[in-house]
Structures are given as structure tokens and as C-alpha cells.
């Protein structure tokens, strides 16, 4: 605080509270809608206080999905989303950390070539190579499988960069000491580098978990069986027609279930989330 201006402080609080309310409003309405009967939602304007259908609606979607649209149970879809988010985040971390270890701690022919190869993938997001990637996955027989859902998304230039940046800041003396003590590269990696990388791994995990959970286009393309839907896709499949034809109470209950896990990860692991966000963009 440079100077005391009470008026400005009040204004700041007012703007921030307004912002918090505006940002939170859709979430509140979604929650309210998920506790109402469908007729209550259709009666314009819908009530703005929670109804008494909370247990009813959530049990319905968790066990059996919607009745007019997709009948995939939300419990199964949440499980698929969890598998996808975990496989993508852990897979990315694993293959990136060993790749950066090779690039930073070894000198070998074609080292720069491989580094650039990984770098260029930054410029090829899945959205621009939709059809051919789909073809490759179809040819490999990976449609409607967890491998097909996750493997094409686990190559990550950003994670490789992050670990490379971090390894470059690790003091030279540690590797020197390890070598003098007769430790090989794998021993050094396991006993020195991995423990040092703990916070970077946690930060990256948070970001990549959210990335994996929220994937949309890719699962939309390669899952056609209800048993393989992720929850984000499932919501899309529950919306079948115009305003009046949808079972909004069930759609909103599924939406709550879909957005709570990643939102909790952000709120509860805020410190690592912020660190991960700032570091992956450097």
C-alpha cells in the first residue's frame, strides 16, 4: 500500500465481490437446477433456491444416466475420466522426465535433433491433425480403448521443457559427487534427481490432470460405445434436442459431477497449481 485511500479500497472490494459473484453465478444456478424437478426448471423463471430432488437426481445419473438421451451411468463415465486423467498426467510425467534426463545429462549423437523433434510437437495440437490421427488410431485397432484415449495425448513438449529447465539448475556438484562415489546414471536419477524434482512433479501433475480430465475433441472422436464415454462427452450426449426436450435436472447434476473433481484439485492444491501454471508457460 503506497498511500491510504479508503474510498479506493472500498471500490476494490466491491469490484472483486462483483467479480466473484459473476464468476460463481453459473455454478450456483447449475447446482440449484440439479436439485429440482424438470417441471420446475421449465416453469420460467426457474426457482433460484435449491429444491428437494438432490438425492433423487444424483442417484439417477450415477446409476443410470438420463432417460431420453445417453443412458451411460455417470459413475462409469467418472471412472473413465479418472483413468484418462491419471494415465495422461502420469504418462506425460514419466516419459518427459526420462527424456529430459537423457538430454541434459548425456552427450550423444543426434541429441539436438531429438530435442527439436520434441520441441516441434508444440506446434501440432490435436485439433489441427484430427482426421489423420484418428486414422492412425483406428488402424492400430485402438478405438474405444483406454490406450487409444490416452496414448496419443501423452507426448508433451511442455513437460519435457519444464524438467529440462529444472535439471539445468541442479548443482553440478551433485552429479560430480555421485560419479566419484561410483553411482551410475540410473542410481543418480533415482536417488538424487527424482527426490529433488518432487515439487515440479506435483505442479505438473495438477496441470496435466486437469488437461486430461477436460479433454473433449479426442474422446468425442474415438469413443462410440457408451461404456467408454468420459463424463465431459457424456453431458454432450445427454443433450438431445431443444430447450424443452432436455432433462436439464439430470444434465446439470452430471455437469456438477464433471466439474467438481478438477475444481477441487485446483482449490485444494492451489500452491502447486499456480506453480505449475506459471512454470509450464515459461
Amino acid at each position: 500500500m503506497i498511500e491510504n485511500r479508503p474510498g479506493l479500497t472500498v471500490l476494490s472490494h466491491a469490484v472483486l465481490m462483483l467479480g466473484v459473484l459473476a464468476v460463481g453465478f453459473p455454478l450456483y444456478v447449475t447446482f440449484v437446477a440439479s436439485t429440482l424437478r424438470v417441471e420446475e426448471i421449465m416453469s420460467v423463471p426457474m426457482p433460484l433456491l435449491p429444491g428437494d430432488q438432490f438425492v433423487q437426481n444424483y442417484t439417477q445419473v450415477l446409476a443410470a444416466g438420463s432417460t431420453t438421451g445417453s443412458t451411460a451411468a455417470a459413475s462409469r463415465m467418472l471412472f473413465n475420466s479418472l483413468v484418462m486423467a491419471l494415465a495422461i498426467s502420469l504418462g506425460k510425467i514419466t516419459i518427459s522426465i526420462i527424456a529430459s534426463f537423457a538430454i541434459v545429462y548425456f552427450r550423444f549423437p543426434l541429441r539436438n535433433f531429438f530435442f527439436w523433434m520434441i520441441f516441434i510437437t508444440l506446434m501440432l495440437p490435436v485439433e489441427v491433425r484430427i482426421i489423420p490421427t484418428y486414422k492412425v488410431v483406428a488402424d492400430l485397432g485402438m478405438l474405444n480403448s483406454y490406450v487409444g484415449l490416452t496414448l496419443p495425448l501423452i507426448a508433451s513438449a511442455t513437460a519435457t521443457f519444464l524438467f529440462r529447465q529444472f535439471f539445468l539448475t541442479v548443482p553440478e556438484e551433485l552429479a560430480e559427487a555421485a560419479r566419484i562415489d561410483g553411482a551410475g546414471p540410473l542410481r543418480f536419477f533415482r536417488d538424487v534427481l527424482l527426490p529433488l524434482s518432487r515439487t515440479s512433479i506435483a505442479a505438473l501433475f495438477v496441470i496435466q490432470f486437469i488437461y486430461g480430465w477436460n479433454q473433449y475433441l479426442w474422446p468425442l472422436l474415438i469413443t462410440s460405445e457408451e461404456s467408454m464415454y468420459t463424463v465431459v462427452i457424456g453431458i454432450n450426449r445427454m443433450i438431445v434436442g431443444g430447450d424443452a426436450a432436455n432433462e436439464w435436472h439430470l444434465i446439470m447434476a452430471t455437469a456438477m459431477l464433471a466439474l467438481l473433481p478438477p475444481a477441487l484439485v485446483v482449490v485444494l492444491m492451489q500452491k502447486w497449481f499456480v506453480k505449475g501454471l506459471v512454470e509450464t508457460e515459461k
Partner: protein
Amino acid sequence: MEKRVVFRSAWLPYALLAPQIAVTLVFFFWPAAQAAWFSLQLQDPFGLHTEFVGLQNFKELFADSNYLASFRTTAVFSSLVAFSGIAISLLFATMADRVLRGALAYKTLLIWPYAVAPAIAGVLWAFLFAPSIGIISYVLKRGGIDWNWVIDGDQAMLLVVIASVWKQISYNFLFFLAGLQSIPRPLIEAAAIDGAGPMRRFWTVVFPLLSPTTFFLLVVNIVYAFFDTFGVIDATTQGGPAQDTQILVYKVYYDGVKAADLGGSSAQSVILMFIVIVLTAVQFRFVERRVQYS
């Protein structure tokens, strides 16, 4: 910077790189090369007959008024998303940087939308703005505004912009807050002693010092609007009404998956790759140069 101390092994580094390189080759380079190859071909709708046609797909695209309209739509959409997203987050971040009490609570309550999938953000806002039952539509109609984004292209655009900006505010906010907190206090104190009020200090000291962050966010937001908003569009307008919200990425998907036009869709993919490469190059080159550092 390079390490002086390195390990020696003829095979280990290759083995460590192998998984990453394998995935990159199979799922990035091979499909990208195929996209480039398909873009030079004409295929009949059943995939039975393929013919090499050179640059004809590209010529047709640039002669196609729908494709050019999609370029315009993407330009309008991404500038609206980037500018309004950046302006709103900068306002919040400046305010959050001022307040002492409740700063952490505000931060927590403003960053959670980052965790919401674009497609779900689309569904939430489509529900609020649903023409016949939406609560905001109801208020708008009471206020005399005829709200129906299903038939009105401008309103559809407004809807997808609101949903996209809502999701991105948290990201911009965090970067602006970090940027604001790294500005050296003595600079602002000096300006205050010279008699500059809060507004003057913001525009002459704080805002110029934030320019690296602002520029970085501008590029990130444009990339976000180009690609990550696919889910928002697919869950709400699906490019409609009458292609008024059909951004480039959505058209690649629509033409390739729904309309099964392999050559045309691949040619669009190649153009998009080119755009990403330019955006990435801009990000790397100009972030360092154009903007003022403290």
C-alpha cells in the same frame, strides 16, 4: 547452459528417449505428414478412389466464401475473447493486488473456472441463456431484448465469447497478479511522491511495466480462442446459426468428420498448422524484444 559433468553410455540415452520419440513419431509426425499428403489429394466420398490434384484443394478453399467467412468469424471471435478476457482480468488483478484483507479468498474464488472443461462451460452458459427457459434470457426479455441465440448470429457469437472468456479469466488473472507483485515498490512510491494519483500511476508506470505479461497473455489467449474453444462451440451453437460461429477449428472437424471431405479438411489442417507455427514464432521472438522490461 550445458552440464559439464555428464554420464557416458552408448545406449542408455536412446533408451530413455525412446518412449517420448515413439509417441511423437506415431501420433504427431505421421498424422501431420498424412494431413499434408491428403491435402494434395481428391478422394471420393466412399474412399474408393483417390487422385493426386496438387494444390487444387487449397485453391478451392480460398475461392470458397464459406471458408473466408470462417476466417473472419475466427478473427472476430478471437479478438473479442482475447481483449475482453485480458481487460476484465487486469481489472480484477489490479484490485486484488490492492486489497490486504481477503486476498487469498478472492484469489481462490476467482481461479476455479480454470478447472472447468470448455464443453461444460458451454453447457452452463447455454443453459443460462437458453431462449425459452434460461434465467438470463428471462431477465433480458423482461428488459425488452428479444433474446434467441438459436436464430440470431450476433447473439450466438456473444454467447460463445462469454462462455470462453469466463473460463479463461482465472488464467489471465493469475499471470497479471504475479506480474503486478513483481513490480518494484520504489518505482510506484517515487511516482506517488511526485504527485501522481492512482490512475496516473497505473497508466504511466504499472501498465507499461506489465507489457511483457500482457503481450504473452495476448498470444496465449489467441491460441486458446483458436483451438481450445472447440468444446464451447460444439456444446452450444455447433457453428450455427448459419455458420455465424463456425471458427476454423470447428470447420476442420465439421468438414472432415461430418461431411467426410478428406482432402478439403486436410488442406484446412495444413493451413491451421501454419497459423500455429506463426503464432508460436511470434511468441518466442517478440516477447523478448518489443516490450519493456523493468
